[in-house]
Structures are given as C-alpha cells and as structure tokens.
C-alpha cells in the first residue's frame, strides 16, 4: 500500500478513535460496569461490531456510488417514504445532541463549579462558531486529534488491574442474576450508544466531502475496522473501570458528578483533569458531528446546496439548519435537563428506532445500481440486520419495564 494511503489510514483511525467516545458511550459503559460488573461486556462488543460494519458500508457506499446516504434514500425511496426516517432521525438525534451538549456543559461545571445550565449558551456559541468558520477537514482532524486524550481511560483501566478472566467470560452473553429489566435496559442503552445512525450517515457525507472514490475502499475498511474497534476498546476500558471501582461497593452512576471517580482513584488529581478534558472534547466533537449529520440529512433530502467545506454564504440553508439545531439542543441544557437522564433516554430511543434507519440503508447496500459489484455480502447483511432488530426488540421490551421499575 502506498505511503499516502497509509497516512490516510492512520489519520482515519485516529479520528475514529478520537471521535468514538461521547457521553453516550461513556455513561452507558460506566453504568453497565457499575451495575453488572463485567457481565455486559458482550453488549459493548456487539455494538462495536455493528457500527464497524455500518461505517464500512457507509464509506463503501459513498465511494462507489458518489451519493451520500440521505441523497440516495430520497432518490430511491421517494419523498413520502423518506420522510419517515427523516423525522425519526431528526427527533432522536436532536435529543442525543442535547445530551452531548449537556455533557460538554457538565464537563465545564466539573472544571469550574459553575452549574451546567449556565454553560448552555457559551457551549452553543462555540459549537456554532466552529461550524461557521472551520472546514470539514479542520473539524474532523482537529477535534478528533484532541479526542485522543480519551486514551486516558485505557491507561487507567490497565492500571486498575481488572479481572481479565471475568472480562473474557463477559464477552459471551449471559442472563442476568439480578434486576433483569434493568440489565436489558442497560444493554439496550449500550447498543444505542454504539450504533448511532447519525454516525454512519455523517460518515457517508464526510466521504463525499473528501472526494472519496473506489481507490479508497481499502482505506475505508481499515479505518472502519481498526478505528471503531479501538474506539470500542475505550468503551470497554470504561466498563472495566466501573466494574473494578464501582461494582464491588454497589455504587451506581447516578449523576455525571460520579464519573470522574472512574479515573481519580487510579490516576489521582491529574486523572481528574484528564477526565474533564476527555468528557469536554468527546461531547463537543459529538455535538458538532450530530449537528452536521442532521444538517446534511435535511439539505441533501431537499436537494439544497450543502457542504462544510463551503463558506456559509454558499449554502445558507445548510448553515441555517445547523444553527437551528444547535439552538434547539441548547434549550434542553439551558432549562436544566439532566445530561445523564437525557443520555439514558436518547440512547434507549436510538436503539428502539434503529431498524428504521438501518433497513433502508441495507436496501441501498444491496442495490447494484449504486454499488455495482461492491454490494453487501450475506454476512454483512446478516450481522447488521440481526443486531438492529435485536436492539429494537430489546428496547421495546425493556424501556416500559424500566419505567415501571423506576429506573436504576
């Protein structure tokens, strides 16, 4: 493989890793480890596997068809059918974005002791400003390189001295010993945090922004596999930390203020600041990514000019979309919606609505008119289909039970 492609792979992996963690994966992994020790390891693995496949498919789709996913969905399924995933994705992803912005604000609260609703407006403004001024490459690379600070979780997890045997056993799905409703609810939340539709929709637009073609198929595979894999590894590190530090004492993750204790017992005061930096950067990056992803979804669905690489004056409606979305998300934070609760709800809803985003995408991935010989194989189809249907079934069953049971 040529040097340039190697560099692209490296950069791609780095951005995937740096961009993987966000408040969803952090809190759901922490809650899984706190409540059930290593038992839910399998949910992190399955979620990571599914998103890795979806990301690879997304990149392959864009590179071969020269269409983004929303573009192809409107074209292929028509305006009426397209409106359903459009509305569902907008609603659910907006909640996720509100959770991310809340996470960013929560990190600032941890750093300054100034309550998080206060940070809603500054956070929104900074997010908007970066999207307004920066190019796609700047955002992708810049924010995600900063996101490498999240490697601190891996370092802490190794230092914590986990029970590797139990960890390995947790990789196989098992039935819960206690609180079954809560167990499946947390599993569903982990899946929803890993398999976020906004991620692979965004990835296809990114591939088009970066002018990918078929020569990038190899790069795409490496980035998806190793990037997502390593990102999942970081989620696992958080689960491990919670399993080692919280689970033995029966301590739960009830508030985002509990989260720094995943790291401080192992790395001390510097660990606290590394955690805050990780949370802030991860959530900030996710906020930008979701805002862009939804703006792409709408702009491409309606056929407007779009592109983060274009200056706002060249795609005013696209810019208006992300502006409105950021403002809407900020309202949740401003009115004090607890970031942790918002995260739990949005992750569960993501799982419940997963097939709605995934199934049309799978239809596209098997369409030779777009992909020629690069259509999906049976394995890819089977894995993605089964995981998303499973996520939905689990969500539909466990959410009401969790609500009845009063939550965890």
């Amino acid at each position, binding site marked *: 493989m040529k040097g340039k492609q190697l560099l692209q792979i490296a950069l791609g992996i780095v951005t995937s890793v740096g961009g993987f963690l966000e408040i969803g994966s952090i809190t759901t992994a922490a809650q899984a480890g706190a409540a059930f020790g290593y038992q839910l390891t399998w949910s992190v693995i399955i979620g990571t596997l599914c998103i890795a496949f979806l990301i690879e498919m997304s990149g392959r789709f864009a590179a071969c068809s020269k269409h983004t996913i929303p573009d192809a969905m409107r074209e292929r399924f028509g305006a009426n059918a397209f409106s359903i995933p459009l509305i569902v994705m907008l609603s659910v992803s907006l909640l996720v974005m509100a959770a991310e912005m809340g996470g960013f604000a929560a990190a600032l609260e941890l750093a300054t002791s100034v309550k998080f609703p206060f940070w809603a407006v500054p956070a929104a403004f900074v997010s908007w400003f970066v999207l307004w001024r920066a190019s796609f490459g700047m955002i992708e690379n810049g924010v995600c390189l900063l996101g490498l600070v999240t490697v601190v979780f891996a370092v802490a997890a190794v230092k914590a001295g986990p029970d590797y045997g139990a960890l390995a056993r947790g990789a196989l799905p098992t039935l819960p010993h206690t609180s079954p409703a809560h167990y499946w609810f947390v599993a569903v939340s982990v899946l929803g945090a890993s398999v976020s539709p906004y991620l692979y929709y965004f990835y296809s637009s990114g591939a088009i922004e970066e002018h990918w073609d078929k020569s990038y198929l190899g790069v795409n595979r490496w980035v998806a596999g190793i990037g997502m894999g390593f990102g999942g590894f970081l989620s696992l590190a958080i689960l491990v930390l919670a399993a080692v530090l919280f689970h033995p004492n029966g301590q739960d993750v009830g508030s985002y203020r509990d989260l720094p204790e995943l790291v401080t017992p192992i790395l001390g005061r510097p660990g606290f600041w590394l955690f805050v930096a990780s949370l802030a950067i991860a959530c900030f990056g996710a906020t930008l990514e979701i805002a862009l992803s939804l703006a792409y979804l709408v702009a491409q669905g309606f056929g407007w000019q779009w592109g983060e690489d274009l200056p706002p004056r060249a795609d005013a409606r696209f810019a208006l979309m992300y502006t409105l979305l950021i403002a809407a998300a900020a309202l949740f934070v401003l009115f004090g919606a607890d970031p942790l609760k918002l995260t739990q709800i949005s992750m569960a809803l993501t799982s419940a609505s997963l097939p709605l985003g995934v199934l049309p995408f799978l239809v596209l991935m098997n369409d030779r008119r777009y992909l020629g010989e690069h259509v999906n194989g049976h394995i890819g189809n*089977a894995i993605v289909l089964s995981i998303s249907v499973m996520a939905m079934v689990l969500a539909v069953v466990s959410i009401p039970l969790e609500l009845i049971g009063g939550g965890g």
Partner: protein
Amino acid sequence: MMSPTGEVHIEQLLGRRVRDIDGAVVGRVEELCADVINGETVVTEIHLGAAALWERLGGFALHLPFVRFLPIARYEHRIPWSLVDLSDPENPRVLQPRAKLRRVRIDQD
C-alpha cells in the same frame, strides 16, 4: 376511445389504486415508463401491482435470505398507455378486464 386532454402529475399518481373496467382492483401505480418516439418523450407503459413496489426497490429485496419465506406477491401488471384512463387522476382506470391484462413476474426481470 376518447382520451381527454389535460395535465397530470405523475407523483400524485404514485401509489394510487387502479381499477379495471368492471371496477375490480388491479393494483397500485408503481411506475410509468416512457420512450422517445418521433422526437417526443411519451409515456408508453404503466406498471401496477403490489409487487411493482419491488421495482422501485430494485428487486434485490426478493433475494434477501429471509424474504423467500414471506408471502409477497411477485407479479406486476404492465399496461400500455392506450388502455389507461387518467382523466380522473384520483381514480385511474384500466379499460379492460383484469384477466386480459399482461401480467409479469417481477423477479425474473
């Protein structure tokens, strides 16, 4: 037969139920095919039927492993323009009994 004049929006026809001359339901509008004839692009055929939906989805869906076991109709009616009355776009009609219409199996395309 009298063919009335006027404009019709194809996107409004999409999905509409079409009945035959006896009032029996033939299927839903799923596609309109056109050809260039004498320099003009004209509608030559209309495709109807529950199965015709697969045409829009590319037909791949019929090859997914699990679909084979589902009771989905795999036929569509292909009707030449001269047998279709679009004068009332909300109630398109076919000018022959259903049994006489050309029926095609979609996954053999």
